[in-house]
């Protein structure tokens, strides 16, 4: 085997390279933190087909369709994307596959950028799909290959469960040589893949047979170190925490077991528990491995005390402090912590902010104005998932709910049915095509008086500006096709935008049906990537009255407050978009410098 020098790469890149070493030929995904870089890496390799699909279900079905033709395929998503894809994923476990199908789900314990933590390993228990859990970027690479191997050998989907602390960590990885992509060929077998009840009943039997084979395949997926009557089991990333603390504390009489197959837990672990009297299981989120070990212990009539979540807690990311606390209680030893005195300091929180030049800031600003112009005294802002979720924060406060991709219109429907207050459903362009279309159809079908505002920035901006279907399909045409009678589009940087909102609100009130307005302007980061800005917004101090509107109500990060309350625009942060110009009621802000060539085109994309 070719020996390569280890490379410093991200866990996600390590997974992509593991797939390349396994002969992946088709890969699909929907961007979502922290999973995104896997598809981005695969897109650099021309002999692999890699795409951003419109949602996770379509991405999964793409990979599945290839795998039932005999190809080796990969699908990636974040943990909550599993919910979107789960309908088809559950069926894939019935039919199995003929090539190999690896599903990567990247979790976000601690919810750095997600609506929930959600332990996706429940899907493994529910759907009889094995869950492989790496513990660092190197194991992510190696276990991706293992996942492909199990999947192709058994003919069954396999889930690789990673998380922020593996996907977004860089470390040295020894990369295996790439294999030629394994493609499929047309192969029809409706009596296996078409789940009408007759077929499903037969497939269910076969699924259980495959499950037994999988139990054998994963039997070696445990790592044992040391010996003793006290056993600490670490699962995935938690195994790394246990390893480092055991090195630091050097307790005697302790055995450490790392588990990399969390569903099903290898039954061989029972042998390793012989002679033990107490076991501590450390894993993130839910007691998935803990409960399986308890079940095995009870089934085998062993007398063994199993501890886990009671000592580690089940909220948030695992960390050294949590594991140290659990170990100190379990091993009855004192763990010295070198924490410098924790003092309470008065420091403001710094939530993420919409970028300088973000069109959504202007959309929210003029939306509020437009609603009051349109005569709506009160409303409910039914929000959705994307950068614009930040509209939740002050000064906008224009996201009263946001629970999942595409939920804005369904929730708005419920709010209206309960209160008869006309709601505003706010959705981004990528989210609109991900799962908003069904919501529009429902609003038309059930005649919902709602203003649907599509914040179209021509990209899936939050995850790094991946292209969105909005660049290929006109949102107005889609809405008209679904039967929306009132459609309009405007530029959120223009003060006329509030008039467009007012007109649409008025139409909703008179016609008792849905109206749709698109706020269309490219993501600022995409625009300044295309054209280098050369103009700047400047405040005329003679005209500025210190009214606070631009920094307290518009809150562009480039606009700062001077000690005399007047505004000052930081030239290193201003991109010269001009969004703040119409915001100032005293005309104190103007653009200075030459407009660069291609500037307007860059913003309309």
């Amino acid at each position, binding site marked *: 085997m070719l020996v390569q020098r280890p490379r*410093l790469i991200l866990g996600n890149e390590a997974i992509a390279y593991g797939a390349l070493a396994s002969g992946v030929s088709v890969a699909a995904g929907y961007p979502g933190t922290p999973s995104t870089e896997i598809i981005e890496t695969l897109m650099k390799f021309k002999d692999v087909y890699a795409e951003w699909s419109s949602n996770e279900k379509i991405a999964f079905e793409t990979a599945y369709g290839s795998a039932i033709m005999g190809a080796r395929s990969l699908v990636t998503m974040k943990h909550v994307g599993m919910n979107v894809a789960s309908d088809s994923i559950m069926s894939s476990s019935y039919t199995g596959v003929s090539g190999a199908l690896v599903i990567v789900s990247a979790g976000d314990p601690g919810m*750095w*950028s997600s609506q929930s933590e959600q332990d996706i390993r429940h899907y493994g228990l529910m759907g009889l799909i094995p869950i492989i859990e790496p513990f*660092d970027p190197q194991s992510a690479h190696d276990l991706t290959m293992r996942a492909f191997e199990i999947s192709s050998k058994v003919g069954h989907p396999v889930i690789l469960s990673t998380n*922020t*602390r593996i996907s*977004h*960590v*860089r*470390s*040295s990885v020894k990369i295996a040589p790439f294999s030629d992509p394994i493609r499929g060929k047309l192969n029809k077998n409706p009596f296996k893949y078409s789940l009408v009840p007759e077929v499903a009943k037969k497939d269910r039997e076969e699924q259980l047979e495959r499950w037994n084979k999988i139990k054998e395949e994963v039997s070696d997926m445990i790592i044992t170190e040391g010996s003793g009557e006290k056993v600490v089991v670490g699962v995935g*990333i938690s195994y*790394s*925490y246990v*390893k*480092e603390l055991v*090195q630091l504390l050097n307790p005697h009489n302790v055995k450490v077991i790392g588990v990399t197959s969390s569903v099903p837990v290898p039954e061989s672990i029972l042998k390793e528990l012989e002679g033990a009297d107490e076991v501590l299981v450390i894993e993130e989120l839910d007691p998935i491995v803990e409960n399986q070990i308890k079940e095995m212990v009870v089934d085998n009539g062993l007398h063994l005390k199993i501890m886990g979540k009671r000592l580690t807690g089940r909220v948030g*990311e695992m*960390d*050294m*402090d949590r594991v*140290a606390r659990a170990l100190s209680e379990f091993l009855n030893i004192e763990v010295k*912590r*070198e*924490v*410098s005195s*924790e*003092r309470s*300091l*008065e*420091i*403001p*929180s*710094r*939530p*993420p*902010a*919409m*970028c*300088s030049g973000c069109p959504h800031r202007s959309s929210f600003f003029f939306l509020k104005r437009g609603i009051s112009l349109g005569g709506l005294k009160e409303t409910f802002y039914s929000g959705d998932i994307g*950068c614009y*979720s*930040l509209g939740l*924060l*002050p*000064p906008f406060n224009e996201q009263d709910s946001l629970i999942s991709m595409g939920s804005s219109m369904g929730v708005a429907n419920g709010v209206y049915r309960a209160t008869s207050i006309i709601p505003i459903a706010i959705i981004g362009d990528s989210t609109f095509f991900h799962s908003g279309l069904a919501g529009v159809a429902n609003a038309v079908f059930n005649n919902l008086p709602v203003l649907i505002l599509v914040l179209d920035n021509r990209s899936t901006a*939050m995850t*790094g500006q991946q292209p969105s279907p909005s660049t290929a399909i006109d949102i107005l045409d889609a809405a008209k096709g679904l039967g929306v009678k009132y459609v309009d589009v405007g530029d959120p940087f223009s003060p006329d935008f509030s008039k467009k909102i007012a007109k649409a609100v008025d139409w909703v009130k008179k016609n008792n049906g849905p109206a749709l307005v698109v706020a269309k302007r490219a993501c600022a*980061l995409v625009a300044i990537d295309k054209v280098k800005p050369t103009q700047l917004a400047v405040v005329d101090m003679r005209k500025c009255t210190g009214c606070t509107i631009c*920094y*307290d*109500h518009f*809150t*562009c*990060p480039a606009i*700062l*407050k001077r000690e005399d309350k007047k505004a000052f625009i930081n030239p*290193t942060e201003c991109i010269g978009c001009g969004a703040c110009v119409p915001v100032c009621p005293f005309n104190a802000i103007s653009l200075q410098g030459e407009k660069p060539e291609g500037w307007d085109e860059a913003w309309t994309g």
Partner: protein
Amino acid sequence: MDRLNILIAGIGGQGVVTAGKILAEAFHEKGLTVFESETHGLSQRGGAVTTHVRVGNVNVPLIPKGGADILIAMDGIEALRNASYLSTDAKVFLNESVKLPSLPNVKPVSISYVLENLRPWRTYTLDCEQIVRDGYRCNTVILGLVYEISLRKYLDINDFIKVLRGPTNVKSFMLGVQRGKYYESLAAMDRLV
């Protein structure tokens, strides 16, 4: 060296992630085990960002509270937010400025309040605004300073030069090294007095 923990804190857009990557690459170049972990929230810009860099005999990517040997802070408020990560004899490298969050009616925080609260730790300061005005890259200048004061015993200067991309970065790094030498000479004079 057994373990070295370096925490980099700042605001999205200040080069926090890039600085962590350069550090990790330099240690990797030397053949040391290194983990570099990015911790950031929803948006690309404006939010609080940290990068954990751990080197040596380590298995996990995150620095425990009280475990950081070095804090590189690109902003005063972010330095204070991460002070609980500092070990008792940690060194702090601080861009001496305070950027208030983009929220309405934020109570101002002064740089003197920041420095007052960092008093338990040896703190080296820089003025990034001036550095940028002079045509240097601030995150790389800080890395040069950190190298000269704290990393010389683990790395050769060439480990860094190899991973710095472009002449501006090398020039900036060398400016930081000079600043470090200046600080060291001041410290030496202190000891003489």
